[in-house]
């Protein structure tokens, strides 16, 4: 939590005003009991009605000042608190949006989302609470003690008794209950876990007719939780009656001691009442401060989660300007590229070299975990190679300015992702000033034209957030159109065709030839049928290149490739393919 305080820096003068206003408010509020004692001692006892009215007016004046102080401090607390939250949110968002994929993967999207919204809210609320209550409590405490001693110095020992009693009881209760809270949280988590399991595994539970088993499991955890909850509650609830006893006890003590001091000085008549109120303020401030123990841990969890994001170092630094001249002809070349996750032992990519040239399609295939997705992510520098060189148009990727490199690449991710807006805004996402002809051409090639034309508003049709109002296949076609519309030097399809049915897949690849004459095309695929016709197929296994060539060549000489093909075809079909591969030699 305290680490986040640095975000308060721009608002330091507002915090100071806040402090001053709070001080003013506390001081004026605390002057009232003393004035009341004056009314009793100087007005009532002496029978001076005038004095009473004058003091009464003074008290009203103080009340108004106190309210003004309170208004000002509330205003600045809200202002600083919300501005603080805004800045933290912006900091998180900026950080996340510039994360490289590696860091992005280390958090889940859902968790990043909670950190940006809920956690910041939590921290904001606690921050405002701190401004409004936590700043007030110590001031109240100190000023009350001073004023109490001033009004009745002989009674000041009562403050010690009261404060000790309050602190003692609060600390005892908290120290008994606090350790149980952890157990409590674990049990709550357990209950949530069982519920979640039963929801996600609904069909399995019912299929095996195990409802009763699950109910028993749940009941066991639930019973445990209930017992613990009763225990915690019974201890916690001691607090209220104890505080009441202590408050009433000290008030009685004040009266008793005050009365016994009357013989010494009759002014104790008024002073003991005022003193009793000051002691109450002292004890209340302690209570307010003990709330900090309850609030801070919760806010700390949120603050910690926020800091986790903020302190991630930026792994990739981009140049302001591209250094060196990239070649005119498109190409992608890997020279002995390694990639290893930080703190991991095994390399994801191990000494990968190849060259993909303009006008040709280079395809990557391999089982999950073979590194094919990682490999293509190195081209737009979503990841940074840990060894070797990645060259785009002859220039190492780290020599590029971000905009220059990204402008060369049309990247289509595995999952078709759209943004809220229109069909038009989605296709023109990377190039807002593209012409409508360009957009329509992209849609036609991506096999999206047919369904777009059928939409009520065609290219102006609304696309919902996350593209939920179009089907999976349509989403994928639009995201392909988006890449085509950019008119890039390099196309990268990261398993982008698997959401399409095989006919659309084939048609799309055929149409794509229209725009890939001078471009490098990189395709990652699962389906052998998608990449059969590629000019160059690179077979990856455990991060190593184990085969490079065309379909039939690889069928003959690359064992891993054979296995992949075999797993997708029946025995007979596989034999047919191999036979064709044999014949291909004579073609």
């Amino acid at each position, binding site marked *: 939590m305290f680490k986040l305080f640095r975000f308060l820096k721009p608002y330091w003068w507002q915090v100071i005003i806040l402090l001053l206003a709070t001080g003013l408010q506390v001081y004026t509020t605390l002057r009232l009991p003393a004035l009341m004692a004056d009314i009793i001692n100087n007005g009532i006892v002496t029978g001076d009605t005038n004095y009473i009215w004058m003091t009464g007016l003074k*008290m009203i004046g103080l009340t108004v000042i*106190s309210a003004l102080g309170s208004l000002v401090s509330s205003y600045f607390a*809200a202002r600083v608190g919300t501005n603080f939250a805004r800045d933290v949110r912006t900091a998180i968002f900026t950080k996340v949006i510039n994360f490289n994929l590696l860091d992005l993967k280390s958090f889940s999207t859902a968790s990043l989302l909670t950190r940006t*919204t809920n956690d910041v809210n939590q921290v904001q609320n606690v921050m405002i609470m701190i401004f409004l209550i936590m700043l007030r409590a110590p001031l109240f405490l100190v000023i009350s003690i001073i004023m109490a001693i001033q009004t009745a110095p002989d009674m000041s020992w009562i403050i010690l008794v009261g404060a000790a009693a309050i602190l003692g009881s609060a600390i005892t209760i908290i120290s008994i209950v606090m350790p149980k809270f952890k157990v409590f949280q674990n049990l709550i988590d357990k209950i949530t876990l069982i519920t979640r399991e039963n929801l996600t595994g609904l069909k399995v539970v*019912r299929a095996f007719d195990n409802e009763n088993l699950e109910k028993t499991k749940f009941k066991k955890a639930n019973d445990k939780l209930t017992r613990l909850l009763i225990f915690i509650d019974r201890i916690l609830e001691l607090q209220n009656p104890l505080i009441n006893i202590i408050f009433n006890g000290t008030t009685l003590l004040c009266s008793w001691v005050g009365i016994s001091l009357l013989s010494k000085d009759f002014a104790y008549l008024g002073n003991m*009442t005022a003193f009793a109120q000051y002691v109450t303020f002292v004890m209340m401030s302690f209570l307010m401060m003990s709330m900090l123990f309850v609030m801070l841990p919760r806010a700390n969890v949120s603050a910690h989660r926020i800091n986790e994001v903020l302190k991630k170092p930026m792994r990739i630094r981009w140049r302001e300007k591209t250094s060196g001249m990239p070649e005119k002809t498109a190409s992608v070349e890997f020279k002995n590229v390694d990639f290893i996750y930080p703190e991991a032992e095994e390399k994801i990519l191990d000494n990968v070299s190849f060259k993909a040239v303009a006008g040709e399609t280079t395809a990557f295939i391999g089982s999950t975990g073979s590194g094919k997705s990682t490999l293509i992510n190195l081209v737009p520098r979503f990841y940074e190679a840990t060894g070797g060189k990645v060259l785009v148009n002859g220039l190492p990727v780290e020599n590029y300015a971000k905009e220059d490199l990204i402008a060369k690449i049309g990247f289509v991710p595995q999952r078709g992702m759209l943004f809220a807006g229109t069909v038009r805004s989605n296709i023109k996402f990377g190039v807002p000033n593209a012409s409508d002809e360009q957009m329509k051409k992209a849609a036609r090639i991506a096999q999206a034209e047919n369904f777009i034309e059928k939409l009520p508003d065609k290219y102006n049709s609304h696309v919902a957030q996350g593209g939920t109002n179009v089907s999976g296949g349509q989403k994928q076609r639009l995201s392909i159109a988006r890449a085509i519309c950019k008119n890039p030097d390099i196309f990268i399809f990261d398993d982008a065709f698997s959401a399409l049915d095989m006919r659309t897949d084939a048609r799309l690849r055929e149409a794509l030839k229209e725009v890939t004459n001078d471009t490098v095309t990189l395709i990652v695929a699962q389906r052998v049928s998608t990449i059969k016709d590629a000019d160059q197929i690179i077979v990856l296994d455990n991060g190593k290149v184990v085969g490079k060539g065309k379909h039939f060549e690889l069928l003959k000489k690359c064992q891993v490739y054979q296995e992949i093909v075999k*797993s997708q075809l029946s025995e007979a079909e596989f034999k047919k393919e191999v036979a064709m591969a044999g014949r291909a030699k004579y073609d």
Partner: protein
Amino acid sequence: MTNQPNKKSMFASFKMFLKSLKGHRFSIIVAILLTVGSALFGLFIPKILGDMTTIAVNTYPNIDWSALGGKAILVIILFLTSAALNYGQAFILAVVSAKYTKEVREKILDKIFKLPIAYFDKHQYGDTLSRMSNDVDVLTTSMSQEIADVSMSITILVGVMVLMLTISVPLSLISFIVVPVSVFVVGQIMRYAQKYFREQQSTLGVLNSEVEEDYSGEIVIKSNSYEDDALDEFTKVNDKLTKVSRRAQIFSSLSFPVTHIFTNLGYVAVCALGGVFVIEGRISIGNIQAFIQYVSQFNRPITEIASTTSTLQALLAASERIFEFLNEPEEEPDKNPAKAVDRVRGEVEFHNVSFSYIEGRPVIKNFSAKITPGMKVAIVGPTGAGKTTMINLLMRFYEPTSGYITVDGVPTSEMKRSDVRQMFGMVLQDTWLFNGTVEDNLKYGNLLASLDDIKRAAKASNVNHIIEALPKAYHSEISEDSDNISAGEKQLLTIARAMVANPPMMILDEATSNVDTRTEQLIQDSFEKLTLGRTSFVIAHRLSTIRNSDLILVMRDGNIVEQGTHEELLKLNGFYAELYNSQFSE
């Protein structure tokens, strides 16, 4: 708070909530009585303390210590009794609320099992989960808080008013006038605050979806250099949120200084006027001291009752969500007496089965087929064609809209659901495993299975060596999201689980993605073993599986468009042939 809950349904669910408390009626009444008692005892304390002052002043300088001592003891007795009663109430309510929470949670879990699967196809898991955790939490904490607070506040309010009136009518009237004014002003402020809080919630919603979109689409943003534009868009919403939430915060914190100023004005008036009254001899000094204390006590229940409305709103919203869930229509109960099949041979017949998720849009139309024992049936078709619907009907997760399915001649609709489900073993793409040991997971379908049985099944499913390689072998803890086993291995485990259950028929969903080639072959091999000699239904993706099937059901847009063997279907030269050729023609 963005959508205002419907008043009527809120009222109905509140009635249900009250009804559900019936079992705890007695404890709650006792708790309320204790609260009232505790408040009453506490009320007299300031009055007696005031009397002490009066005694001291009147008998000064020869202070009557014995009279004072008596009063002091009375005060001690009063506050100890008050505290004891207060704790008694808390003690009882702690049990009531904990037990009630427990009951509600169990009811919800029970309900989960009683609801038709269709409910969960329409509602997200997270929603039910949050009803189970958040809403139950809100309901029970605010419930006991409300019971204690409201009864305490009302007693104090009434008691203090009476006591104040007995001390001085004119002073009381002054204090009473201040209250409605302050309540009115605070009420106005809160209305604005609430308006801005609602606005804050909806702006937060906008921000949320904006951020979610950007985070989940980050790869697209990166591949189009869109980061700066995204930040601009974010900043716009962020600024708006800051503005609205600042207003909400300011207005809600305004209520404190405003009540404060009214309270203090009342306080000052009482001090000054009271002082004058004392001089005039209309009131004793001790009584004015007591009166001042009552004035400050008088305000607390009012602010408390004011804050009650917001807790009450939260409570109502939570109870609505909980009881709305508990009120959802349940699966029709099993036929009683139910029919049963003694020794299942595995003859399954579909009799003119139709089904629609949405009325008027049939997913399966008038489908009939007879599957003889031991037959292997492949269900094929593009994604979204309704293949899983067939499985849902077989397992009676859904009921056909018309027609029926028989097993060995007995309609499944006349059997117990649990009996129907136990006839089938199920291996789905979604490899659900629960948190527990490998052993517990594997014997999930047959709780009586011995470790030897389990090992045999694991060997047959090619997963034994994987389990043995885990740190604690069969006693290793695993879960759905365990990362020490791969997706393919998880599927092997679910196959082994089905084998341990040893059902007469099988339902399989072939998954191909995300599994490496070698595991893929192991899975295929265990599938073979699993279906051997059993009537089985396979949602097939692999052509080898399809070709080896005895019957292929080809689905398209929710209809079974063709059925027959591979050769028959190819000859038909229809949709199946097209599907087949698109992948493997030259």
